[in-house]
């Protein structure tokens, strides 16, 4: 399954591929990873969007479930923020539909949608105090005053900022403003909270604290979080599901573990964490030639003598005595990183990045060993013609 999935294009993967590895997937009712979750709440169907003739999203399909912490992850310009803005109603797609709880909300304005957004840089109302900021949505909905007061108290308690009612937004730190922005959104009891790089402006320590805070909030509220970030660590820490995007396409959808351990292509492997991405040839099932040396692996179904990309995480490269290694090389760099040492080993003309708690000095001759299970085989990115052919198959 790992190999077959890797071959599929995004579109096919998401929208129940009609044929994969010769099996008609439409006839399979149980597909793990997708259907064992809660019921679907939002469907983005064939969403396309371009700005000034530049394609930002190209036929994007995405299903979001109830009570899911879903992260849209990718470099800037990958379309993740546009996707979020389409969900919020601030951008309307050129093509495609947004379905919320079974209803088409594509043309519904933001103020009629049952979701709330936490904006980048908070977007608090600077002319109102904290209580007025939080009460804004409730006052618009003409809720009674006692209800609003209770809600303000509850929300401030939830974000650990009790007693801040009369303060003005300008007098708060970035982290506090961020929490007020969250409080302002959640008092409206949305079914979905959209978060647009909410921690981007905070410093590292605060960002880490806020990550745990957000997970706690999500669990307490029991609602869906859709989170946009370019920070892979943030995504791995908080998400139930990560959607890796690049250039308007979804590259991979999966749990943090799947995304990290089984990246589907070189982009995902490179974007998530450090990795060694090496040209290789799949000789036959479970045997791959990396830099001219045969390695055992666990992947099958690629055919014989097929050029592939191989991903090996730096922590999966084992350094041993030269004679016990599969290939031999020389340590060229050594840096102490706290938890581990980072080394570069030149072997067979490739610089292997290695993370290890053990240390070899620069210049040492070492052997490299990799557990077959830790070798991730990926198809080379297809040219556009090949991709088109694959879709028509």
């Amino acid at each position, binding site marked *: 399954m790992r190999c077959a999935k890797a071959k599929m294009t995004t579109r096919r993967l998401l929208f129940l591929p009609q044929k994969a590895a010769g099996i008609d997937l439409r006839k399979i009712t149980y597909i793990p990873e997708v259907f064992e979750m809660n019921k679907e709440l939002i469907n983005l169907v064939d969403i396309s969007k371009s700005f000034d003739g530049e394609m930002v999203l190209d036929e994007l399909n995405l299903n979001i479930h109830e009570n899911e912490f879903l992260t849209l992850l990718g470099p800037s310009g990958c379309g993740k923020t546009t996707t979020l803005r389409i969900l919020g109603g*601030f951008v309307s797609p050129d093509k495609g539909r947004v379905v919320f709880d079974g209803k088409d909300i594509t043309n519904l304005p933001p*103020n009629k949608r049952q979701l709330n957004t936490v*904006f*980048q840089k908070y977007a608090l109302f600077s002319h109102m105090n904290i209580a007025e900021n939080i009460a804004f949505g409730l006052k618009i909905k003409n809720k009674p005053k006692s209800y609003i007061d209770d809600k303000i108290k509850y929300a401030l308690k939830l974000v650990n900022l009790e007693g801040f009612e009369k303060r003005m937004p300008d007098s708060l730190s970035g982290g506090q403003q961020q929490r007020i922005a969250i409080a302002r959104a959640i008092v409206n009891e949305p079914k979905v909270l959209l978060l647009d790089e909410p921690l981007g402006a905070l410093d590292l320590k605060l960002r880490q604290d806020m990550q745990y805070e957000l997970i706690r909030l999500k669990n307490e509220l029991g609602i869906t979080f859709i989170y946009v970030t370019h920070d892979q660590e943030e995504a791995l820490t908080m998400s139930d599901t990560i959607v890796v995007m690049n250039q308007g396409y979804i590259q991979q959808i999966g749990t943090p573990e799947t995304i990290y351990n089984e990246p589907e292509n070189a982009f995902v492997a490179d974007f998530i964490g450090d990795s060694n991405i090496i040209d290789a040839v799949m000789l036959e099932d479970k045997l791959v030639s990396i830099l001219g040396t045969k390695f055992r692996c666990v992947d099958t179904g690629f055919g014989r003598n097929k050029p592939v990309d191989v991903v090996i995480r730096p922590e999966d490269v084992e350094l041993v005595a030269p004679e016990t290694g599969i290939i031999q090389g020389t340590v060229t760099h050594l840096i102490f990183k706290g938890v581990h040492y980072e080394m570069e080993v030149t072997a067979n003309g490739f610089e292997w990045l290695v993370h290890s708690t053990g240390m070899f000095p620069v210049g040492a001759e070492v052997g490299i060993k990799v557990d077959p299970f830790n070798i991730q085989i990926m198809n080379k990115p297809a040219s556009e013609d090949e991709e088109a052919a694959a879709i028509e198959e």
Partner: protein
Amino acid sequence: MKNNGIARKLLSAPYIVWAAIFIIVPLGMVFYYGLTDKTGAFTLENIAAIMSAEHAKALWISLGLSLISTVICFFLAYPLAMILANMNVSQHSFIVLIFILPMWMNFLLRTLAWQTLLEKTGVINNVLSFLHLPALNIINTPYAIVLGMVYNFLPFMVLPIYNSLVKIDPNVVNAAKDLGANGIQTFFKITLPLSVPGIISGITMVFIPALTTFVISKLLGGSKILLIGNVIEEEFTQAGNWHLGSGLSIVLMIFIIVNMVVSAIFDKDGEGSFL
């Protein structure tokens, strides 16, 4: 360090000399003349002169016409500023240019042009009579003065409001919509309050010149309508009574200072500092 401080102070010397000669000395003279009579003795008569029927009337007309002009300017300027603020960069710089273009021409020339346009046998009436339409007789009436004020001072209202509108983070407006506010609610609860500094600057920059103008009323109001600016001008140039002219100037200054204090309280970000 000490030398550095002295050097810096020296650099400001030309400005201090300039300010002394052209601001402080004339102001001192206004106060001197305003608070003395022809014999040089101290008196408040020149200030109390504002209470006389003729002067009080001129002041009230000035205040009234400036206020009307300011209000008209505001209602014309705000929508325009909003349209400008919502345009993309390439479009709006062109429109802003069109707006600022007349400001590069001399104020007097522009007002004289309006006189030519509005005259009984002026351009507008020629066109109207050619089309067999009734003539427009507003020259030498308060309408013409208000028209002149609005025309001349409108850009001073548009630009500060525009400045304060473009400063509003679009996400703040989006946040209001996101929280359920419709377009009208968003405007009155978010956009308008956040643009108050610009509005205050705009009001100041239209109201003060309108209150003190004498050129517009002279050229477009004929000699029938005397604004306080005309009264002061006449005291200096025709009656030759510098004492009375200065006394009335001090009264006018009090109104201006009140206006500026109010605007300083609201305009903390200096929206009006673009000029």
